[in-house]
């Protein structure tokens, strides 16, 4: 079996797992209902693609990590509860991790992207102004911007999925996996922004570097990129975030998380950390002795 075939087989297995799990379908339908309700209340859908993206941005900041954690936290436990079985596949660790990740990412893209596509279709039907009296035009609004929004949302989900999977390899039991997943959720949804906020409060982060620093917080990076490359097109006001820092930030979290999965998948959870802590206490004790 070639490396690619191995990857493909693992990915396909994961996709089928997602498809077979009815509750994921239900989740997708639930998302669509939330989107519909949000847009109904916010009124963005009549305005066009950009107001729709604006209305959905904050709910998505919460819901995308939620879905990503739901898909990722048991990737190497629970559904795939026998990690040794996975590891017994005749594929490399890299292919195995990539396969599981890509398979789940496709699932995530479907769960979030499906309802968003439906929203996009609805905007194309009822969005934008129509008038019998006045000549209308699209302004800066465009379906292209909604595709950007969709792509950024899936990318954001991809990063959080990798983080959730990384958390899941660090723990062994599924109860611990849930806790680790929730920890990722809290870190993504609140942690980065809170640190940035505290940094600003303490004057540790200057205004000139704020746009760059925010790139390190996944949801700020996502929000900044949407404001910059989707909403910003209509306002012509850039500077919502340092785009390269945001892209680098998201890519960094992705690579580090997947790396952690590859490294950690066949090791005793927390073994390194335990060893490290043991060494540290030993040294401290030794230092105190002296």
């Amino acid at each position, binding site marked *: 079996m070639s490396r690619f075939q191995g990857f493909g087989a693992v990915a396909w297995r994961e996709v089928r797992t997602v498809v077979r799990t009815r509750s994921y379908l239900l989740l997708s339908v639930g998302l669509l209902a939330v989107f519909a309700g949000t847009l109904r209340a916010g009124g963005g859908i009549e*305005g066009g693609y950009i107001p729709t993206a604006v*209305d959905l941005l904050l709910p998505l900041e919460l819901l995308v990590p939620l879905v990503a954690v739901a898909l990722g936290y048991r990737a190497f436990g629970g559904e795939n509860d026998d990690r040794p079985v996975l590891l017994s596949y005749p594929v490399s660790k890299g292919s195995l991790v990539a396969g599981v990740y890509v398979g789940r990412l496709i699932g995530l*893209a479907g769960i979030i992207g499906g309802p968003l596509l439906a929203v996009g279709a609805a905007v194309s039907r009822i969005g934008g*102004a129509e008038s019998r009296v006045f000549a209308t035009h699209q302004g800066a609004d465009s379906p292209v911007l909604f595709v*950007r929004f969709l*792509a950024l949302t899936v990318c954001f989900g991809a990063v959080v999925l990798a983080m959730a999977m990384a958390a899941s390899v660090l723990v062994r039991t599924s109860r611990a996996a849930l806790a680790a997943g929730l920890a990722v959720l809290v870190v993504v949804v609140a942690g980065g922004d809170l640190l940035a906020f505290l940094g600003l409060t303490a004057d540790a982060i200057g205004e000139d570097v704020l746009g760059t620093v925010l790139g390190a917080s996944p949801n700020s990076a996502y929000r900044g990129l949407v404001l910059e490359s989707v909403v910003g097109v209509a*306002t012509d006001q850039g500077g919502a975030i340092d785009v390269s820092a945001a892209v680098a930030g998201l890519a960094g979290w992705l690579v580090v998380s997947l790396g952690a999965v590859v490294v950690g998948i066949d090791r005793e959870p927390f073994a390194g950390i335990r060893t490290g802590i043991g060494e540290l206490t030993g040294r401290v004790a030794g230092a105190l002795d002296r």
Partner: protein
Amino acid sequence: MSLRVAVAVICCLFVLVGAASFVVAPEASEPEPAPFDRTVAMGMTLEEQRMLGADRFAPRAQVAYSQFPYVVGYRGIGLAASAVDDPLVEQQFGYPQSVYVEAAPSDVSLDGSGYPVGGYTDEWIPADDAHVVVDSAARTPSGPTQLAFADHERAAEFADEYGGEVVDWDDRGRFDVPTSDGSTARNRVETQHEDADATVEATRELLDRPVGTVVGEDEPTLRAALDTAEANTTILLPQGTYEGPAEVDKPVTIRGSNATIEGDGNGTVLTVTADDVAITGVSIEGVGESLHPDDSSKASDRPAWDRATEEAYGYADAAVTADSVDRLLVTRSEVESPASGIILRDTDRAVVDRVRFEGSDRWQSGFMGVTAIRSPAIVQDSTFDGGRDGVYAHRSSGITIRDNNFIGGRFGTHFMYTSEALFADNCATGQALSGVVIMTSPSGIAIAENVITDTKQGILTSGSDVYVGENVIVGTEQGISTSARNSLYADNAVVGNTVGFRASSIFPTSVVVGNDVVDNDQHVRATSGPLRVWSNDGRGNYWDGAAGLDRRYSPTDPVDGRLHRTGAARTLSDAPIVRGLRTLRGEAPGMRGESVIDAHPRSTPANATRLETAQALADGDATLQGGCGA
């Protein structure tokens, strides 16, 4: 296996499309020019447009803004230029995606007034390609104008003939555009009061004339006295009733002392055809009931639109009618009329002062207290009770209406084709339609420091550059309409109305700040047009329900709009999902429909004293008599 390949291909496709969306420029296609009558058009009052007529034209432009779905038309290339560079416009509607100017006809010339002669070409050229002649003799009724040409040579020829210089759109800073907005009208309030004071002073001199004739002693009747009186004398009417009608055709002062002039119930009682006439201390009764001219050929030298209004309103039976005179004072008099009270046609320096007009009980059967046709009069300290409209102004730019009391009727004051009027310190109550109404898109009217209560609508605006400030609006079905664009609505107390403000202009470019909006069923009703931002330079309005909110407030929002009516609305307004929706709502406001946001709601009233007055009126703890000038 094939399913697997299909899924893989679809995934790759999605990735490609997603990546491509960042490469493709979404704004690649610029909006095409639209027929001008399909644009949201602004610039020039209706009167000015009418003055141009059919064979002359105003240079035009149109702009498509990035966040605004309608194409915006401008009568005046300079107006478009200043709008394009206006930060307030950018905040509301985004940046201009395309700007077109209309090429002038190749055989354009200027007439004696400097108005461009020719027709509209509908040849729209991108502004960047246009050659614009600035500082030439060309003008429209609203001021100097620039002409655009597609062809540089033609532009240079025009400049040779009529002066000026040819510049590009990038040099639009050189388009000499007198910028004006609601604050211009506000700043005019004081000087207009001073000018009015001077005019009143000038007419009061007429009261100092020596008594030449005493009716009843020197002459038997008023008519006889008018026949024999010498110019610049006073005709004295001792207590009693005197027969009208009469024509005042020489400069005299009629001074009554508890005297009544009684018409024959047919036609107008006093017709003034001489300059420098004053009428004081009389009651005028016995006015006819006709609302229309007997002879429709009157005023026939006017263009049709002007004539139609003049005929419809300027020839009713009245207590006093003045035509083409200068300096007229009607003071300390009472007028009872089933038709009009005082009609002024083409009258300069007319002052109506301390007059009490008693009109019909039903407005449908009565007419106007004062009708001013092309007469920038001063109407002050008077009471208009009943009839149709208290004051009706047609083409009377510069008219001043102050310290009056309007009771009942249809409109307290009705402005038609009248710009730069001042309506100040009046009280209006109980009007069937509106306390004061501005129609036909004029500019620069100031409505200041009035008290309007218990009318269907308080202040109904149209046009542009209007100032609506420091008014008290209480107990109306709809307090203030913000239909006039590029205007200033500031420091009003709007209390206890069914709807406080109605946001209705399609292209809202007005500033709405410093208002105290309290205890209305609905603070704001937004009808047509996009989201408006009702705060400026960090200043907002005081909304009860929003005090202490410490965040942007949207009076049209279903939750925010109920904050002043139920405490539970605050609980819901703090829900994460509601907050989430609210937070970013102000992004791309031009793309949002029919709503209002105040980004800086005040935590304390802007003017506590005015608000207290308004609340006392709303609660019935005070009456208008306490708070009105008249």
